[in-house]
């Protein structure tokens, strides 16, 4: 049986869950992961992983400055601001 430290995963995901939610999610995720255990049937020792389906390599751009976003556009969705700064609560 797979054990999941739901509290730890929720913290890493920055999600606050109720006790009820934790129980439900833990059960559902466990079921999905157990189903994912199907993959262990396959011997993938010598199989390379596919992180990208296209065989692209060396995609670059030139070091040339282009237009910036005007300040007001950059800030237009800010939930809170102080002049030209985005404002957030204290860190601790």
């Amino acid at each position, binding site marked *: 049986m797979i054990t999941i430290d739901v509290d730890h995963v929720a913290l890493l995901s920055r999600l606050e869950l109720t006790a009820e939610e934790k129980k439900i999610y833990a059960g559902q995720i466990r079921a999905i992961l157990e189903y994912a255990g199907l993959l262990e049937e396959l011997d993938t020792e010598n199989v390379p992983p596919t992180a990208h389906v296209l065989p692209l*390599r060396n995609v*670059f*751009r030139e*070091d*040339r*400055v282009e237009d*910036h976003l005007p300040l007001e556009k950059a800030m237009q969705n800010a939930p809170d601001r102080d002049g030209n700064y985005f*404002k957030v609560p*204290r860190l601790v």
Partner: protein
Amino acid sequence: MAKYETVIGLEVHVELKTLTKIFCPSSTTFGGDPNTHVCPVCLGLPGVLPVMNKKVLEYAIRVGLALNCQIAAFSKFDRKNYYYPDLPKNYQISQYDLPIAEHGHLNVELDGVEKRVGITRVHMEEDAGKLVHQGTISTTPYTLVDYNRTGVPLVEIVSDPDLRSPEEARAYLEKLKAIIQYTGVSDCKMEEGSLRCDANISVRPAGSTTLGTKAEIKNMNSFKALQRALHYEVERQIEVLEEGGRVVQETRTWDEAKGVTLSMRSKEHAHDYRYLPDPDLVPMVIDRGWVEEIRSALPELPDQRKDRYVREYGLPEYDAAVITSSKEMADYFERCLSGYANAKSVSNWVMGDLTRLLNAGGMEITRCRIAPDQLAGMLRLLDSGTISGKIAKTVFEEMFETGKDPDSIVKEKGLVQISDQGAIEAAVDQALAANPKVVEDFRAGKEKALGFLVGQVMKVTRGKANPEMVNSIIREKLR
């Protein structure tokens, strides 16, 4: 023999001075108004994608080569996932298991002893934004965020844990800074944040080969702070062990004002960065031919320049090392030489009076008002006997304050050395006549009396008499 041995490794971040950021074409210029050098990509807006700046790769390879590393044939970017308000995407695009360069070294000299320090790896990553607090991090009621710096390209250089003292660590950092400045990829200014340093430090019983538990020290913003912080931390860790405790593996911040390191343990657990290859960027295959091109185009590096100064200019090893320890100083030195060929003289003035005045004024050589050709000019005046060595010091200080030409200063202040036989004889006569007792002392064998008499002549001539001539004329007259 000390009871404990210190083991230090440094992680240095260097901002590369490309025109644009690593993954978007926003400007990297330092100091713009907040949030004016941004675009959807570096703001991490929904839907944006990174595109790699080729110049960053070139600069990173340059750094790797300058540090004698092996350059990877295949490299990629990975996402380092963590949450912080200066990180718009809450992941940093960095490199995890396939860094651009590995297994290098550099040579550090300390107290005449040269030591090779290993470089574990060099990798590329994007910088985060800047946070502004009202007061300190713990007392501020809110935090302000400026994303101008987000996405500025960095290389992270990790040393092997080969450093054995805070002094050695400082020397390593100074050498690393010089090397990177010489490559031309960064200004390496700690005060502007284009060079940042964190340290991993542990202690262990002398003779032991296992590593002690290390602490990571952050927020050391100058070379001096690095040294002080590491000294403090060594003492702190030893004290913990002596009292029978265990050093906790944690991150500590250097508090400059209080002179202590403080634990940064917060309610966050240990970081699990959950690295994954960035699916928005494709891997890089590094062409060997290109690497060799970059290698052959590498500018002369500090050690090479130092050796050349010894060879070509006959400078002593020590002088050459000091002059080449900063690229700006070495460049300054060479520009002086184009106007005045005596390398040792130039070196003396640069290492001596110039450095003294710069330190007193808390300024870099780049801000020095004395242009190299002006220093050369002054040295020519000295050579020609127009001014004496003592006067030269006065002229030099005046040049430093005002940036005026030496010729102008000498003229304005009437500092031309008096080398006229007759004039000096007259002044000597005057001084001898006024100090008969001292004359007698000299005649009686007291050599020191001569110094007094020379001083008196200088007083009369307001320091302008040619001292060698004064000396010989006095001796002549009192023979």
